[in-house]
Every structure is written in structure tokens, then in C-alpha cells.
């Protein structure tokens, strides 16, 4: 019975994983990936890890995939284009590497056949929240705290990356050299909240690219 369930969910996981790679539309890949997560959660339940299974569904299938789908829709991703010719060698490379990895796994499985599992006694409630909590907050407190620092860094990093470029004050100066200039600085007639960016070596060149006559006095180079 358990073997049948393992085959069912294992096949579902492998099929969905193949679909993740095979789909050209990222949204379909995301949906297939949710299928992988759900079937892995079922396998975790079979492995007597109900807490991990619940966290898998909530964090992975819930939070992370919602984030991914949000980004896919935010960026309005179109279908992946056909591969360019100079990248054609990548598919054979991937196939060869995958074959090597599978061969290693086959070797490992042959050598692990006589691996004897010695379960420690007196721990029948492995995997429930009651047994995870004490271990997490006593013996593994340091990894737990390091994880919290990691999350703080992730919050700061995500905020820094995702915020929009700040508008420069009107008395800002343009430094010499290659740069990207907000249109509102180069063109005095542009709206002050115009965030389009001009790439240019100098402010004068930016003006030339835009076809603008006059530059703001403050934005001239010293």
C-alpha cells in the first residue's frame, strides 16, 4: 500500500518536475512546480514528518510560489524564445551532465543496498511539532539565530533592490563620465517625476541623444 503511494507521488513529482523544465511559458512552469511541492509534501507525510509537510505547503506552495507568480505577472513575461544558435551546445552538455549524475546515483544505490538502518530507541514521535521545537531552541539554537540574521539581510536586500530610483533635488550636479541620467534633469521641460533614464557619457551628450536644446544650468559639468 505504502509502496503504491510512493510510486504514485514519486511519479507525480518527476512528471511535474519534467514539465517545469519542458514548458516554455514560465507561468506553466510555476504551476508544475506547485505540483512538485504538493507531491513532495505527501511524501513527507508518508515519512512521518507532518510538520515539515505542512510547512512545505504553507511556505513553498503558498508564500514562495505566490511571490514567483506575482513577479511573472508583474513583468508580463512572454514565452521563451527559441534558442539562439550560439547556445545550441548547451543542451548536449546538459544531457551529458545529467547522464553522469544519474550514473553516480545508480552506483550509490548499488552500494547502499546493504545499508543497515539502525533506528535509535525511544523516539516514536519524530517529526511532530512537539519533538522539533525543543531541539530547535536548545541544541540547534545557533543555526536558528543565524537564520534570523539571514532573514533580516534578505529583507534589507530586497527593499534596496526593489525600490525605485530617488528623484534628484533641483540643485543636484551631474558628475562627468559615463552615466545614466534621469530625463527630468536633462530636459527642463520634462515633468519632474519623469523617471525615464538616458544613458550618456556626458550631460551634453544626453541632451543630444534626446534632441534637447538647452540644459539646465545646474546640471552642467564643472
Amino acid at each position: 500500500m505504502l509502496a503504491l503511494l510512493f510510486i504514485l507521488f514519486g511519479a507525480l513529482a518527476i512528471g511535474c518536475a519534467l514539465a517545469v523544465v519542458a514548458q516554455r511559458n514560465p507561468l506553466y512552469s510555476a504551476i508544475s512546480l506547485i505540483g512538485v511541492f504538493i507531491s513532495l509534501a505527501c511524501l513527507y507525510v508518508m515519512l512521518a514528518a507532518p510538520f515539515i509537510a505542512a510547512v512545505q505547503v504553507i511556505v513553498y506552495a503558498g508564500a514562495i510560489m505566490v511571490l514567483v507568480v506575482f513577479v511573472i505577472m508583474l513583468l508580463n513575461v512572454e514565452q521563451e524564445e527559441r534558442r539562439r544558435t550560439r547556445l545550441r551546445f548547451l543542451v548536449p552538455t546538459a544531457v551529458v551532465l545529467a547522464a553522469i549524475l544519474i550514473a553516480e546515483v545508480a552506483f550509490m544505490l548499488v552500494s547502499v543496498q546493504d545499508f543497515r538502518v539502525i533506528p535509535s530507541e525511544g523516539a516514536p514521535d519524530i517529526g511532530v511539532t512537539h519533538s522539533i521545537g525543543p531541539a530547535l531552541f536548545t541544541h540547534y539554537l545557533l543555526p536558528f539565530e543565524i537564520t534570523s540574521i539571514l532573514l533580516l539581510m534578505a529583507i534589507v536586500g530586497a527593499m534596496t533592490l526593489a525600490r525605485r530610483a530617488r528623484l534628484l533635488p533641483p540643485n543636484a550636479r551631474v558628475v562627468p563620465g559615463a552615466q545614466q541620467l534621469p530625463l527630468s534633469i536633462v530636459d527642463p521641460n520634462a515633468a519632474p517625476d519623469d523617471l525615464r533614464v538616458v544613458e550618456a557619457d556626458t550631460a551634453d551628450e544626453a541632451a543630444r541623444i534626446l534632441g534637447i536644446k538647452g540644459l539646465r544650468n545646474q546640471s552642467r559639468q564643472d
Partner: protein
Amino acid sequence: MEPQLSWYLALSAVLFTIGVAGVIIKRNIIAMFMCIELMLNAVNLTFVAFASFLQDVTGQLFVFIVMTVAAAEAAVGLGIIIAIFRNRESLDVDDASILKL
């Protein structure tokens, strides 16, 4: 017949291999990102399988930590993807082959 430890290890290895192949094959940066998540999940399956067969809770604790790292990676990675898209108007990794934004 009960599922053996080697079954779970084999399934995990297959999932990991698919993830590696996906990272190499895919050109869309979001699809590569999802293949990395797939690899992390394959490793998680190994952790949980060993934790269950050895009756030791440590493996499940580290699955928990791997999930946290994956969540942090998702937040920062998607932020980077948005920043790249703003600059390049493209999600193809070949268009982001130079570091200068």
C-alpha cells in the same frame, strides 16, 4: 512492500538531476530560479528520508532551515530579477551577460 530508503534517495537524485538540467537548459531567468527551487526540494527530500529512517529529528530541523534560506533567496532573487528587467527590458540571461547595469 514498504518503501526503502534507497527509493527515496533515487527519487531525490532524479529530481535534483532534472533541476540541474533545467538550470543549464533554460534561458529565462525566472525559470532558472524555479529549477533552483526544485534542487533545494530534492535535497530536502533526502534530509527527511534520512531523518525518518534513522529516527533522528536533526534532518527535519535542517529542512526547516533550508526552507528559510529558500524564502530569503526568493525575496532577494526576485528583487534582482525585477532590477535586471527594469534595466534591460528582458528576462533572457544572455541579455544580462555584463555586470554593468
